[in-house]
């Protein structure tokens, strides 16, 4: 590594992990936050049964999104083998979602929950915890120097890890690429949405205004096998 920018020297820890308010974490390309030291994986905005929620309004999108989401989640948990999992809210698209789970999907989700110390953080789509799946419901939860809650608090909040906004970034001059992304200024982090049908909100949207120290803001854009850290100067609006 050569010449770091002023104030950049703490983006990464000595061990090559990402420095998030003092915690050494990984932004996994699958879209989950991995904290190896705590054996913790955090996943945001699963939005299970979003498809059937659309379907109930006559928009018959393929009803396979829950299956796809759970399959992806099982793959990443199988790879990282965490002891603890925090589902960061909006795990279910609506209050009736748990009841609409196909039996096979219900079983595979229950198996995932049973396989780890599982925490359901309440979200705006799912203020009430699931009834029959196990796991521990919380409004928010602190681990070490980090606090995990669904929606980011207005203004700066060092150590906050949130979801809710579904961040995505767009880059490119002649042709553009838009990807889901972790956004972080080293103090706070907002996770990309994990659900198969969750779209992304451009990080230049007003909803992100004031949440980050702009000079240190980096969008970690998801790709197949790695994440690409991109500075705000490269962002383009939708």
């Amino acid at each position, binding site marked *: *590594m*050569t*010449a*770091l*920018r002023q104030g*950049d020297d703490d*983006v*990464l820890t000595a061990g*090559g992990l990402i420095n998030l308010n003092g915690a050494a974490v990984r932004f996994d390309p699958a879209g989950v936050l991995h904290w190896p030291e705590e054996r913790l994986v955090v996943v945001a905005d699963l939005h299970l049964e979003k*498809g*059937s929620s659309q*379907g*109930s*309004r*006559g*928009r*018959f*999108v*393929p*009803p*396979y*999104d829950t*299956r*796809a989401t759970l399959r992806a989640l099982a793959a990443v948990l199988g790879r990282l083998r965490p002891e603890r999992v925090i589902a960061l809210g909006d795990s279910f698209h609506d209050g009736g979602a748990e009841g609409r789970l*196909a039996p096979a999907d219900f079983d595979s989700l229950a198996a995932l929950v049973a396989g780890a110390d599982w925490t359901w953080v309440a979200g705006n789509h799912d203020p009430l915890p699931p009834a029959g799946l196990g796991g521990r419901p919380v409004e928010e939860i602190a681990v070490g120097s980090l606090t995990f809650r669904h929606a980011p608090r207005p203004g700066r909040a060092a150590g906050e890890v949130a979801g809710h906004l579904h961040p995505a970034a767009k*880059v*490119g*001059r*002649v*042709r*553009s*690429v*838009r*990807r889901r992304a972790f956004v972080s200024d080293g103090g706070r982090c907002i996770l990309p949405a994990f659900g*198969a*049908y*969750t*779209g*992304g909100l451009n990080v230049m949207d007003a909803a992100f205004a004031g949440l980050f120290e702009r000079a240190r803001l*980096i969008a970690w*854009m998801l*790709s197949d096998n*790695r*994440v*690409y*850290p*991109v*500075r705000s100067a*490269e962002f*383009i*609006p*939708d």
Partner: protein
Amino acid sequence: MTETRPLPPKFEAWFASRGWQPRAHQLALIEHGLAGRSVLLIAPTGAGKTLAGFLPTLVDLAARPKWKPGTRRRGIHTLYVSPLKALAVDIERNLETPVAGIGLDVAIETRTGDTSASRRQRQKLIPPDILLTTPEQLALLLAGSDAETFFEDLKTVILDELHALVTSKRGDLLALGLARLRAIAPQMRTVGLSATVADPDELRAWLVPQAPDAPPALSEIVTVAGGAKPDIRIFEADESIPWAGHSARYAYDGLLAEIGRHRMTLIFVNTRSQAEMIFSELWRINEATLPIALHHGSLDVGQRRKVEAAMADGRLRAVVATSTLDLGIDWGDIDLVIHVGAPKGASRLAQRVGRANHRMDEPSKALLVPANRFEVLECQAALDANYVGAQDTPPIRDGALDVLAQHVLGRAVAGPFRADDLYAEVVSAYPYRRLGRHRFDRVVDLVATGGYALRAYERYAKIKLTADGTFRLTHPRFAQGYRLNVGTIIESPMLKVRLGGKARGHGPVMGGRLLGEVEEYFCEQMKVGDTFLFAGEVLRFEGLRETEVIVSRTKSSDPRIPVYAGGRFPLSTFLAASVRRLIADPESWGRLPAPVRDWLALQKEHSLLPRPDGLLIETFPHEGRFYLVLYPFEGRLAHQTLGMLLTRRLERFGLRPLGFVATDYVIGVWCAADVGAALSAGDPTPARLMEPDMLGDDLEAWMAESYLLKRMFKACAMIAGLVEKNAIGSQKTGRQVTVSTDLIYDVLREHQPDHILLEAAWADASSGLLDLRRLSDMLSRITGRIVHQRLGRISPLAVPIMLEVGRERIAGEADEDILRAAADDIIREAMA
């Protein structure tokens, strides 16, 4: 000898008063009309086609007893459907003259997307005798609960520019609408008006109901022989003709001189950006300030109407236009048509040339301006074709399933229906004649609950089979959804261009005049401060506000965002064959300009001339890379597909392809390994490289990861109503729709790959963007006739494509490269 004259005296008198004789085809159409027979009229522009189409209606209406107050209102007598709403408006104007002149009491009205709600309402209560409309409006009328009373008296449906309609999904929608109309008004007959077509029988069959498992039923046909031979020249410049590119800059001085020599010149180009560029360049050198205007589909309607009015009044000397002026709209007294760029199809050329001198007996005068050397060949081939009257419109494809889904929902919106009845109706429409019952039922299931193997949406069904055996709509909100989303035109999302102020602080200053619309993708590449050509001026991009692009005026005369000016249409099969023949036959080169002649002669000397029935492959090294250049002349779409497949295959043979570029004529591939040496050594042989089996597994594998299929799927999903173009009360932006249909596509492909909409998307892609049929025809044509020419350096014929290599973005450039370029250097190294 006395002829029987079907024309009533009033009509005879009107013709005589104008010094006209009714023409034979006009009389023939009246006879068919009186006998209630459907008929196809094929006539060149200027033959009085529209009047001929309406005469039988006017004759019939003239003989009709006057409507007495207190009796039942009569429904529509004649429905006229055209692909352009401008055309409907124009026809209304043009019919006024004969109707007033003959002294007829006939109500003629238009109904388009622009028609006010109150007028629509009134049209339902008091139907006009003649209604002029578009396919989408017809679908909406048919979905009305009052459709049956509205249409039950219908006698005639006139379909204008039928050749342009039938090859698209709009044509499918219209064919289904006609089938519905026939069920409501069995006495109804059709009149198709068409320019030249390759296969008139297809159009004749399209016009009439088809019986299952029977040879196609055909309508009557009336053909008007071509008028005077058009006088077409190819532009000759003193300067040499460019090797590549689309600007035709070398010709601008000459074009201006031509404009000066004529009353009114129409300049056709293939794309909007070409129109913008030529318009602005002409004005740059227009010292005599000749009134020259610009007309293309992206301009604001108000501005377009102004140009049209000025043309009609003869206040302009020239108009630069795109295909928006293609169809039969008749404005002004044009005495020269200039076509910049190659015409891409002989039929299109004939149509455009027909704009000059809208009188059959005088030759139209046209000038072709090729922008590069290959276009010279194409123009010459087109010119030959026009003289022999060759025709090259594409064949009619099987009806699209997404359009059928939309029609099924529309049918349910109109009222309860039986599946058996609807199926019988649908297969009577020519494009759907081969549709099996099982596929039809799958489409009905798609409409009802999405058509999924996992029956998740049964309880939310949009239509349901009820106890009496009919399908019924389950909720009125689905009717509203249908009305908002009817139609098959899924354009690239458009953004409005509005004049505003310079960006200050958090965004652009709002609030100026609307200039027109541009495609969303065009703006994606822009940053604040970039300048581009639009509406004839250089504009500065200030930012996006919702669905509007805010721009400001600049003094700059150099737009920074280059406009890509390739053709929108691929080279037609027919013209391609003519170009191949022309190149292969040195005897015929006498007709070509000297620089092009010399170019071909050099090719003959240094390499080989491509044979008309074979394929020439050249290989040569250049600046450390190894090039493979193919000369199939099969059009850009087929070449793009072939390029993708070929690079996959070269990869497998270990020849390390780095990229390719395709034009309408040539494909160039560059490799890191010596592809020439490999082909010479027979590892692989040229025949193995080009083996038609590449359309099997290679194609499957490529399509699976291709964005093309996603784009097709998006259109199908919208047309079929799986996702909505327009939701009630909210206009989704194109971006949000893209994201969700892409996600849907990925999930569906993984979990139900045989879903009917994936089938529909595949059918669209293979016939449309991929041009698979043409590619496979080509691969079998060249089997056993592939010639590999290994060269030490670039051949003369390869020069144009080599220039494109430097100019065009390398096809297949990966998303990863873009991300890598944007990623932060320092962290990137750490994270790699």
